[in-house]
């Protein structure tokens, strides 16, 4: 060991969506909390490309959401050759919220009770209504744009800012929903549409996935972290955790990590909290073997890494014969359709799906869409699509299956030599039928809205945005890894707070729920420390 550090009360691993919310809550209660993050801070003004003319090229290089393409020093490689969906993430202060589209829907009440309602998977040991105060607190901290009154949800508290504008494109597609009499709503969105909490309103520049240089998009490096640090939280960057050690009683003792100079440091802590996301967290646990835990830490159930869920996506694109000004406004338009969300026994699948509306692609993305040939017909094909497309991301609920998993690849490691993860994932029959249904109904909406042509991709590969299920929550230690407080059944001073603890996936983006859970676990840790 090169450097050994003094013990801290609580050590968090990962400074993304969950780690930030948790650390703020603890610091706010006066607890000494330290966070180790493998990435670094990004400066929104200088590190994001959207003020340069080559901004779109950065999607292929340093801002590609796939760490295998990005291959930066802060990234670790992932073997995804046995998965039709590639896992995506970002490694920095703010974690994957640097990249995210800031869709901020909550899971719905039925999502927490799928066994009771639909006889599949398991119920969560916690309900929507127990989480509600944490959803509300998190909304306040992140800043949510939206409109209350959505009949697809129980009533919610007022949103912090008005909804993201519809523009011409939004008007067009909402006519389609209206014609069919189907549900649509401006989905909650973690974007300031007007000034809020010291950050400005969005100026509708478009590419939120490349980072928001004016800080209108609520990534946790600009929401929770500045506040947490002010309250005394310590954030150590360029610190990649290799493993968690245990003492002779089987309690978590320390985290061993590589610092930016390649030194190995050991950080002792009374409580250790994993927030490294649905792939990073099982990777650390499976790499933390000892005589007491030969199969990996907290893995007596054998479920660490199992039940990986992604949310499979189909993409449906309508082409319209007028200019929809589709480059104006956040690319994720944040309209959600929940018409097919809940189980309907007349269909040939259980559970359901939603679709989210995406504005038109930018010029380079349009040209590279695969629909614009080279040669004589090039300009005509480009013109037909540019600013004239509307896309639905059909997001389906994939149920937990133990053969979908994260394991350690014996032949792959990161730049420090730490063994890297391998993903194995198969699309279930239920998901395939669900997405097929989604493509049909999405096509109906497009046609109702006036699309002249509709194309689709039945399963998008670069769509592993949501990483869930790999340290499942539950009451029974034989059938789950953590309890309802994120505390591992095997090691009582070890917690998990990221998307790994999801029991099921729902069919909406997970981060609002991930953060609400992190705040709920934080309350438990605070109450235990008193």
């Amino acid at each position, binding site marked *: 060991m090169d450097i050994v550090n003094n013990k801290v009360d609580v050590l968090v691993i990962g400074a993304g969506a969950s780690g930030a919310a948790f650390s703020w809550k603890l610091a706010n209660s006066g607890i000494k909390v330290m966070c180790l993050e493998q990435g670094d801070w990004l400066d929104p003004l200088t590190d*994001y490309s*959207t*003020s340069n*003319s*080559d901004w*779109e*090229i950065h999607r*292929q290089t340093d801002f590609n959401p796939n760490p295998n393409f990005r291959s930066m020093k802060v990234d670790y490689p992932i073997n995804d050759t046995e998965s039709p969906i590639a896992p995506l993430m970002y490694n920095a202060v703010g974690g994957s919220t640097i990249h995210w589209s800031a869709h901020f829907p909550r899971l*719905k*009440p*039925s999502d927490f009770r799928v066994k009771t*309602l639909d006889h599949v998977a398991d119920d969560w040991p916690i*309900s929507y209504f127990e989480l509600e105060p944490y959803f509300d607190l998190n909304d306040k901290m992140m800043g949510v744009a939206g*409109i209350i009154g959505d*009949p*697809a*949800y*129980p009533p919610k508290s007022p949103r912090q800012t008005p909804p993201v*504008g*519809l*523009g011409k494109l*939004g*008007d067009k597609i*909402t*006519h389609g929903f*209206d014609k069919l*009499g189907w*549900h*649509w*709503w*401006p989905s909650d969105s973690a974007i300031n549409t007007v000034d809020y909490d010291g950050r400005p309103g*969005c*100026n*509708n520049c*478009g*590419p939120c996935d490349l980072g928001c*240089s*004016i800080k209108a998009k609520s990534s946790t490096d600009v929401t929770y972290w500045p506040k947490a640090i002010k309250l005394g939280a310590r954030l150590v960057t360029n610190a990649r955790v290799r493993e968690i050690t245990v003492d002779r009683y089987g309690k978590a003792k320390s985290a061993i990590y590589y610092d930016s100079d390649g030194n190995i440091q050991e950080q002792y802590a009374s409580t250790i909290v994993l927030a490294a996301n649905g792939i990073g967290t099982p990777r650390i646990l499976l790499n933390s073997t000892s005589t007491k835990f030969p199969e990996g830490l907290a893995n007596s159930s054998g479920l660490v890494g199992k039940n990986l869920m992604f949310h499979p996506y189909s993409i449906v694109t309508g082409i319209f014969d007028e*200019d929809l*000004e589709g*480059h*104006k*406004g956040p690319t994720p338009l944040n309209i959600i359709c*929940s*018409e097919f*969300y*809940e*189980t309907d026994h007349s269909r040939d699948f259980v559970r359901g799906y939603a679709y989210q509306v995406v504005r038109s692609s930018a*010029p*380079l993305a349009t*040209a*590279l869409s695969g629909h614009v040939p*080279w*040669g*004589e017909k*090039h*300009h005509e094909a480009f*013109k037909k699509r*540019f*600013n004239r497309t509307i896309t639905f991301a059909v997001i389906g609920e994939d149920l937990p299956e133990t053969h979908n998993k994260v394991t350690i690849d014996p032949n792959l490691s990161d730049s420090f030599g730490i063994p890297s993860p391998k993903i194995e994932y198969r699309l279930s029959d239920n998901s395939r039928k669900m997405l097929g249904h989604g493509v049909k109904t999405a096509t109906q909406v497009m046609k109702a809205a006036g699309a002249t042509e509709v194309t689709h991709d039945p399963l998008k590969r670069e769509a592993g945005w949501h990483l869930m299920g790999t340290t499942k929550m539950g009451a029974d230690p034989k059938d789950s890894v953590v309890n309802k407080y994120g505390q591992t059944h095997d090691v009582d001073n070890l917690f998990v707070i990221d998307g790994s603890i999801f029991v099921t996936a729902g069919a909406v983006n997970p981060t609002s729920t991930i953060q609400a859970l992190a705040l709920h676990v934080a309350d438990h840790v605070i109450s235990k420390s008193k």
Partner: protein
Amino acid sequence: MRTLSKSNSDTLTVIVDLLIPKKGSLPSPSDINVVEHIDDTISDAPQLMRLFVEGLRDINDKDFLSLQEKEQIDLLQKYECSNSLFFAELIRHTYNGYYTNPIVVRAIGMTGHPPQPKGYNLEQGNNFKLLEKVRERGQIWRNP
């Protein structure tokens, strides 16, 4: 040029202009330095450099520059099938250079500025009023 030889860059100039022909206010790639863009990109990426240098050498071996335009297009179409890896990169980097150039971005109807710092004015839209009908249809969340 940092990497491409004179003959390779001459060949590439003809190729990129066939991939994206000049039309009205839309310039040809060679008018706006797309070949220089590709040369810069491959100079910093050894694998890509090899792919381009070898791919262009193969095309040059067929006496590409002395062919008629129609024959050049036929040859490129053959290459698209027989050397798809090189061709995909050729397309990607040609489009990269072309569609990030402010002259092109203006010509397709945008301001020509990058998204920030100015952003855009977005109409709020007229259809929020339609939400009343959605609300009137009543609760659709399932109460467990």
